[in-house]
C-alpha cells in the first residue's frame, strides 16, 4: 500500500511538471516552428552580431525592453516606439532580448528613432552628455584615450568637465560594434499585422 502511494505521489509530481512544460514550451514551439522571417528582416551581420554580444555582456536588457506592445495596451505607438512586435520579428534572435524592464525606453526601433551615430557614441561614453538627468551607467571602457586621433577614429566630442587632459577619446571596437547594432534595430518593415496572435498557419 505504501509502495502504491509513493508511486502515485512521484508519478503525479512528475506529470504536473511535464504537463506544464508541454503547455508553455513544447506545444508553442511546435506551432511557431513554421514562421518565416519577414522580407524586410535581415540576418545580423558579423559586426551587428558582435555588437549584440556587447549589449548582452553589459546587461542592457535589464533596463531596456525590445518588444512593442499592441495597440490599446499601453501607449507604445503614441511614444513612437514602433508598430506592435510579432513572433516573426525575432526569428534570428538567440538569446532573445525581450526584456522585462523599462527603466529606459524600448529599443525595438531605436535605429529609426535615433539614427545619429555620434549621438549613440556620446551617449554610451556618458549618457548625461546628451540626456541630462539620465540614470544610465557610463561605459568608458568601450572607448580609448589617445594623444591624437587616427584617420579612421571616431572622436567623441566631450564637455570640458569630462574631457581627459591633453588626450582625445575615440570609439573602441566594442563601442563601434554596439552602435552598429543599435542603429540596425529597425523593425518598421511591414508584417502581417492584427492581433499579436500571428501564429496561425496560412
Amino acid at each position, binding site marked *: 500500500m505504501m509502495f502504491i502511494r509513493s508511486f502515485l505521489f512521484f508519478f503525479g*509530481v512528475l506529470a504536473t*511538471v511535464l504537463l506544464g512544460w508541454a503547455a508553455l514550451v513544447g506545444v*508553442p514551439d511546435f506551432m511557431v516552428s513554421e514562421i518565416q522571417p519577414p522580407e524586410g528582416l535581415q540576418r545580423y551581420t558579423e559586426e551587428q552580431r558582435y555588437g549584440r554580444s556587447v549589449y*548582452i555582456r553589459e*546587461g542592457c536588457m535589464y533596463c531596456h525592453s525590445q518588444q512593442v506592445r*499592441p495597440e490599446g495596451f499601453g501607449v507604445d505607438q503614441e511614444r513612437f516606439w514602433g508598430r506592435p512586435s510579432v513572433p516573426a520579428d525575432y526569428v534570428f534572435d538567440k538569446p532573445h532580448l525581450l526584456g522585462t524592464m523599462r527603466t529606459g*525606453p524600448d529599443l525595438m526601433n531605436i535605429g529609426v528613432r535615433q539614427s545619429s551615430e555620434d549621438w549613440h557614441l556620446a551617449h554610451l561614453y556618458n549618457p548625461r552628455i546628451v540626456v541630462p538627468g539620465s540614470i544610465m551607467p557610463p561605459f568608458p571602457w568601450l572607448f580609448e584615450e589617445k594623444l591624437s586621433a587616427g584617420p579612421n577614429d571616431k572622436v567623441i566630442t566631450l564637455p570640458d568637465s569630462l574631457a581627459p587632459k591633453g588626450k582625445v577619446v575615440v570609439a573602441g571596437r566594442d563601442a563601434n560594434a554596439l552602435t552598429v547594432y543599435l542603429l540596425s534595430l529597425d523593425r518598421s518593415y511591414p508584417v502581417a499585422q492584427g492581433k*499579436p496572435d500571428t*501564429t496561425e498557419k496560412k
Partner: protein
Amino acid sequence: MAKKKTKKPADPHGEFRGQRTEADQERRIVIDDAARTPTVLYLGSGIFWLLVGSLFGIVASLKFNLPDWLGSSAALTFGRIRPAHLNTVMYGWASLAGAGMIVWLTARLCRIQLQLAWVHYLAVILWNLGVLAGTVAILAGYNQGMEWLEFPRFAGAMIAVGFLLFAASIIQTFRKRNVDHLYVSLWYILASMIWFPFLYVVANLGIYQGVIQAAMNWWYGHNALATWFTPIGLAGAYYFIPKVIGRPIYSYYLGLLGFWAFALFYNWNGIHHLVGGPLPTWLVTVSIVASVMMVVPVMAVAVNHHLTTVNHFRMLKFSPTLRFVVIGSMCYTAVSVQGSLESIRSFQEVAHFTHYTIGHAHLGVYAFLSMILFGAIYYIMPRLARWEWPYPGLIKAHFWMSTAGIGIYVIALTIGGWFQGVQLNDPAIPFMDVVEYTKIYLWARSIGGALMVVSHFIFAFQFVMIIKHAGPRRFAPALFRESAPMQREEREP
C-alpha cells in the same frame, strides 16, 4: 500517507500524542549528529553568499542614485552586478541555506540518520564552485543573456550535478524512513527533488530560439520559484509554526488540497511575465488563468498556517524562530495574492516594465523565503552546535533591521513603480519626466537595502559565534524576552 483514519493531526514527532520519552530525545540527538556537518556546511556557505549577494544588491541600487559612481569599472557596471546579485542570492544564499534546512528537516521527519551523508561534501563543493565560477563569469562579461539563466553552461552543470547528489541523499533518506506518516513538509521537499533537476537541465540545454526561447525563459524563471524556492519556504513554515507553538497544524486535508493544487497550477504560470508581448494570445491567457487559480493553494496554505497561529500571537513576543517564520508565512499570502492580481492584463498594462515588479520579487524572495530561512536557522543551529545563540539582542537587531529594510523597500517600489507605470501610459508625459519621478523612490530603495545588508552582517557574525562556541555561554534558549511561559527550563534537542 496518514493511514490510520482519525482526525489525528499532522504531527511531526508524535509529541501531541504524549510520547515525549527519553528514547525519543536520544534518537533526535543521534539524528541531529549525523546531519550536523552537511547542514552547517550548506547553511554557512548560504550565509556567505547572502553577504556577497546583498553587497551586489546595494551597489546595484546605489548606481540608480549615483550613476557615475564606480562608473569606470566594467566589472561593477549595473548590467553585470544586477545579474550577479540575482544569481548569488538565488543559487547561493536561498538554494544553499534551503538545502541545509532540507537536510536537517528530512532526517528529522523521516526519523532516521541522514543516508549517503558523504555525497553532501561533494555537493557542497560543486555547488559553491558553480556559483563562484558563474558569478565571476558574469562580472567578467560572460553572460548567457537570459534572466535567471545567466550562468555559463559549465557553471550550470556544476550546480546541476551538486543538486542531483544532494537529491540522491534526500531520496535515500526518505526510502529508509522510520515513519509511516509523511508530514506535509516532506511532500514539498520530495516533489522539489524531482521538479527542479528536470527544470534546470531542460532550461540549460539552450535548444530554443526567438519568442519560444522567451517562453522557455519565463517558464523556467517562474518555475524556479514554483519547483524549488517556494517548496523550501512552505516546508519550513509547515514545520516550524506548529513545532514552536506546540500545536498541530490546523488541517491535514487542507494541506493535501493545497499541495496538489500547487503542483497543478504553479507550473503553468510563467508566461504571465510576457503579458502584452509578441506571443500567441492563448499562451499568455493560459498562464493568467493558472496564475489566478493559484489563489486556491495559497488560500489553503494561508488558512492552515494562520489558523494554527491565530490564538498564539503572544508567542511572537518571545520566539525568534516563530516571529521570523510567521512574518514569512504572512508575506507568502500577501505576495501570492499580489502575484495573482498582477497577472491580470489590465493590471499588467500598468505594472509591467516598472519597479513595481521588483518590489513584488523582493516581497517573495526576501519577506517570504529569506525570513523563513532566518527563522529556521535560528531554530536549527543551537540543536546542532549544542550551544545557544550568545547574543539575543543581536537577533532582535537582525529582525528589526531586516523587517524595516524590506518594508521600506517594498512600499517604496510598490508606490513608485505603480505611478511610474501610470505615467508611462500617458504619452503626454515625456520619458525623462518619468525617470525623474522615480528617483526619490530609488533612494528609498537604497536605504531599505542598506538596512538589510547591515542586518545580514549582524546575522553572519552571530552564526560564526555559535559555530565557534564563542560569546557568553547561555543555558536557556535565546529569546526576545526572558521567562517565556512556553519555554522549558532547559533546551530540548
